[in-house]
């Protein structure tokens, strides 16, 4: 009997070991532990055994069952793992294949720079003001102390609309600068005023460096006791913040704009790095801004008392600021919609200018 059990165990273990599929293993299990199984048959014999016999044979037979059961389980796990590995091996995909492409969108440099300027000037308390691009003659010229025969009008290369579009006797024009927003702001809100006004402006001029449409930004401060020193500080502070450089040097030159007195033109110093002009230092000078103390006649034209309120205004080209900071050298490309250019110079949607993260991107 003992010898038979030992033989049975050896046989079964051999069968388990050589089962190479789950089905074969199941057949071994049924042959051993099934209703008609060899081990089940031995278990059944225990019922007819004497207590003494059972005491000696019982543990042996139970031991056989346990070892077979656990050998089956362990073999089953092995076979399942092998099966899974086989399947996974068959599921291999070339991970060097390209993933689905997602298009990259961009924000135009003009928009980005306008956002940068809004952020910088917000910190100095300037709100963003707006005005129409199709203006009447009064707002664009007359209120800015540019009467009809003023030679400065000739400098503006104005786009006009036909006389029949005139309103209240005012010829309608495409605004030649963002300065009419000064007038609209002063006539619609009480001082103190601090605004910037970015937007499209138009001049009938087209060559390598001029386009008939471009972008300007206007700044206006009207308050009590504002003088040229405040203007100087504001421009220095703004340009340092915009270029994110401490070595920005300004050169102020007396100039002339009909709507400011005194008028100041502002050059910014540049250095030459790898053949390109970079803002900072003072190897040469580039004109970047026009500015001055708002002319008494302009303040008067807006219904304010120039003996009480005074202030300064400045204006500069947004496209030009973008070019100076980011290195584009052709203004015309700004308005061409060339996807390659937009991909090259455009900005990531998440490059939102912030003071904490830096306004530039």
């Amino acid at each position: 009997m003992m010898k038979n059990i030992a033989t049975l165990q050896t046989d079964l273990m051999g069968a388990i070991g050589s089962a190479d599929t789950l089905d074969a293993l199941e057949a071994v299990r049924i042959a051993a532990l099934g209703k008609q199984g060899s081990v089940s048959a031995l278990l059944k014999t225990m019922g007819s055994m004497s207590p003494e016999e059972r005491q000696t044979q019982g543990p042996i037979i139970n031991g056989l069952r346990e070892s077979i059961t656990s050998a089956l389980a362990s073999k089953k796990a092995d076979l399942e793992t092998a099966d899974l590995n086989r399947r996974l091996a068959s599921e291999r995909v070339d991970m060097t294949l390209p993933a689905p492409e997602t298009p990259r969108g961009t924000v135009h440099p003009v928009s980005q720079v306008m956002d940068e300027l809004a952020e910088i000037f917000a910190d100095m308390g300037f709100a963003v003001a707006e005005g129409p691009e199709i203006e009447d003659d009064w707002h664009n010229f007359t209120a800015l102390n540019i009467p009809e025969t003023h030679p400065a009008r000739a400098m503006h290369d104005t786009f006009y609309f036909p006389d029949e579009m005139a309103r209240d006797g005012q010829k309608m024009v495409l605004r030649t600068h963002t300065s009419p927003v000064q007038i609209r702001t002063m006539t619609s809100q009480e001082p103190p005023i601090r605004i910037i006004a970015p937007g499209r402006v138009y001049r009938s001029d087209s060559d390598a460096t001029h386009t008939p449409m471009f972008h300007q930004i206007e700044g206006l401060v009207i308050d009590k006791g504002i003088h040229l020193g405040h203007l100087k500080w504001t421009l220095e502070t703004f340009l340092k913040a915009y270029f994110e450089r401490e070595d920005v040097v300004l050169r102020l030159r007396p100039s002339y704009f009909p709507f400011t007195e005194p008028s100041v033109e502002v050059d910014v110093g540049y250095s030459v790095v790898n053949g390109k002009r970079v803002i900072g230092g003072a190897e040469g000078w580039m004109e970047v801004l026009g500015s001055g103390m708002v002319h008494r006649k302009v303040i008067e034209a807006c219904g304010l008392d120039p003996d009480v309120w005074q202030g300064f205004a400045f204006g500069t080209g947004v496209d030009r600021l973008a070019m100076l900071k980011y290195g584009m050298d052709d203004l015309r490309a700004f308005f061409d919609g060339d996807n390659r250019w937009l991909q090259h110079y455009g900005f990531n949607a998440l490059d939102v200018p912030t003071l904490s993260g830096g306004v530039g991107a």
Partner: protein
Amino acid sequence: MKFSLSWLKEHLDTDADIHAVADCLNRIGLEVEGIENPADALSAFRIAKVLSAAPHPQADKLQVLSVDAGGEPLQVVCGAPNARAGMLGVFGPAGAVVPANGMVLKVAAIRGVESNGMMCSIAELELGDDHDGIIELSEDAPVGQVYADWAGLDDPVIDVSITPNRQDCMGVRGIARDLAAAGLGTLRGLGEVYKIDLSVPLEGSDAAPIVRTDDAAGCPAFYAQSVSGVRNGDAPEWMRSKLKAIGQKPISLLVDITNFVSIDLGRPLHVYDRDKLNGALVARKAVDGEQMVALNGKTYTLDASMTVIADDAMVHDIGGIMGGEHSGVSEGTTDVLIECAFFDPEHIARTGQKLALTSDARQRFERGVDPAFLDDGLAIATKLVLDHAGGTASAIARSGQAPVAPRNIVYDTDYCRRLGGINVPQDEQRNIIERLGFSVTSDWNVGVPSWRRDVDGPADIVEEVVRMVGLDNVLSVPLPRADGVATPTATPAQSLERKVRRAAAARGLNEAVNWSFLPQKAADAFGGGDWSLANPISEDMKVMRPSLLPGLLSAAQRNMDRGASSVRLFEIGRRYFAGTDGTSDERVTAGIVLAGERSTRNWASGKAARFDAFDAKAEAIALLKAAGVATDGLLVMDDAGAHYHPGQSATLRMGPKNILAAFGTLHPATAKAFDLDGNVVAAEIFLDAIPLKKAAGFMRPAFTPPALQAVTRDFAFLVALDTPANDLVRSIKGCDKDNIVAVRLFDRFVGQGVPEGQVSLAVEVTLQPSDKSYSDDDLKAISDKVIAAATKLGAVLRG
């Protein structure tokens, strides 16, 4: 305004070099646009003596010279017939660049004989047109010296941009006066410069010419003097070289004198040939339709607003702008009439604008010449004529009176600090403005000099003081800053625009900035523009855009032409309409154009996919969502516009009237008009139509997720083919708002099993129980409501 350094120094006694002059000009507001020194290009060319000249062994027309240019004698091959032993000329050694043609001289064999450079002609050095032979210099020319230095060519020319207010600096003397006031030197007396005593009139015994002004508004003063018996030849060399240096071509003595005085003193003159005149010369208004052939050869038709100078027969001068051809001086002129008049700046500006005629005279008169300089100007002109053309002067004719009334400004010296931000002591302020020619009384009543038409208020005086003290000396003062961190400044509309822009870029669209103006045809195809320019730069840029799409489509087409396979462009900008009150109604809009492939051909999905109308719809809805619009409630209606495919486009509306967006496939005819092939889809989001959110604080409503899980039920209905799916979805959604929280259309089928003319639409309805789970009866009741709602639309539940 150009002048040479030596010209400036005729008026300004100074040792300053060109850099000091340029720095000072910039500092005081006379912007230096450029400095050119003709000597720079000639620095390598030296004075040389021809020691010997022998025939070239290989060529009849060449000679072999031995040249002394200050070192060892050099062998030079030369083709000039005038080259000969003993002469002095200008030698360019190897390495020098010939100005006329940019050629770099080299040591080279010419027909077998080595030549070490070149003897140069006038033309080769760009000093004139003469190229008949090499330059011959006088015997005293120092051999070996740089030719340009010896010849006085080392005279830089400065180009200064004169702002429109500074008519006094439209003459070299005015610039010298400003520099002297800034401390750069001393202004010489005018009599000293012209060697003339201006305290006594320069008058002859001949009768004065008869001149008169009948137009006191346009020509308040008309002075004239004639000189008879003149010879009109070449101007003297000093005058010719000054004019040439600044790029003015010498014409003849009499013409050059007027040009010279205009540039030197900012005083325009006109000289008439008296033999061509008939009777008195009168300043009057033109007769409508009167014509004149001007000195530029063009015929101008005049009107009654324009001031002219005419005699009994015809118009001889468009007053203050340009003279007439008929009475212009010529070689044979013997008797001249010199006109020195004052024309009203506004009249000149209007006439010039109307005729589109500009001239040096107009530039000066319209800015306003010195009204107190008529007598002196005329005397100087007459003296120059007498000195260089001979003849005898007549008496002076004076008609009218230039506006020389004194102008005074009450000035408070503290205004300099309050406006200019710099405290300048009273004495210094007084010194500055007196140096500029102003007079100052003890109580600060400031008299403005006649030549400073631009100064008309105390702020102008501040400007004078500040520019002379130097803007560098104005200290920066921080603007007062409000307490705390900066407060937000963007308006709701500005915030909305920023969000939409960044959302579009985040969705893979590229922002373009297109012209605001369109060709007429493009504007017409998109509803027509209200605003057409009277003076467009070209027909392609004529009408202010009523839509952003034409600009985007043109940009898409340019990209396609460059080989792009896919274009995703957007723009945020204004559309321009006329408001009912005639003002401009500018509406901020986002436009989107998608053209070409949505996805390229691909190993996973196969063929390239093209954009369709639903891509446009997706963008429109995404951007509206970014703008804060609850898009689920929007109506989808027709009438997107004629530029869209009528069956594949729609509008998104908030209520039946307020159109927030339009989208769809572009009409094939529109695509064709823009030269675009295949499907092009577009969307327009009318940002100005989106109601702006009112600020409602930052607190969100409490988060209350339902306690019970939602259940879904699917329904399939047969509806008429033309029933909008959204109608079915909306009516189901509305039939039991207590239970139905979402309805999603997930299948649409036409074909086998669906009767002709019908479509099967399947929806998934999400039901949210509130306090207890649904019983079978509850679900049955809801299901009945869904079916009833669908039945109202003619839908039949599929079995």
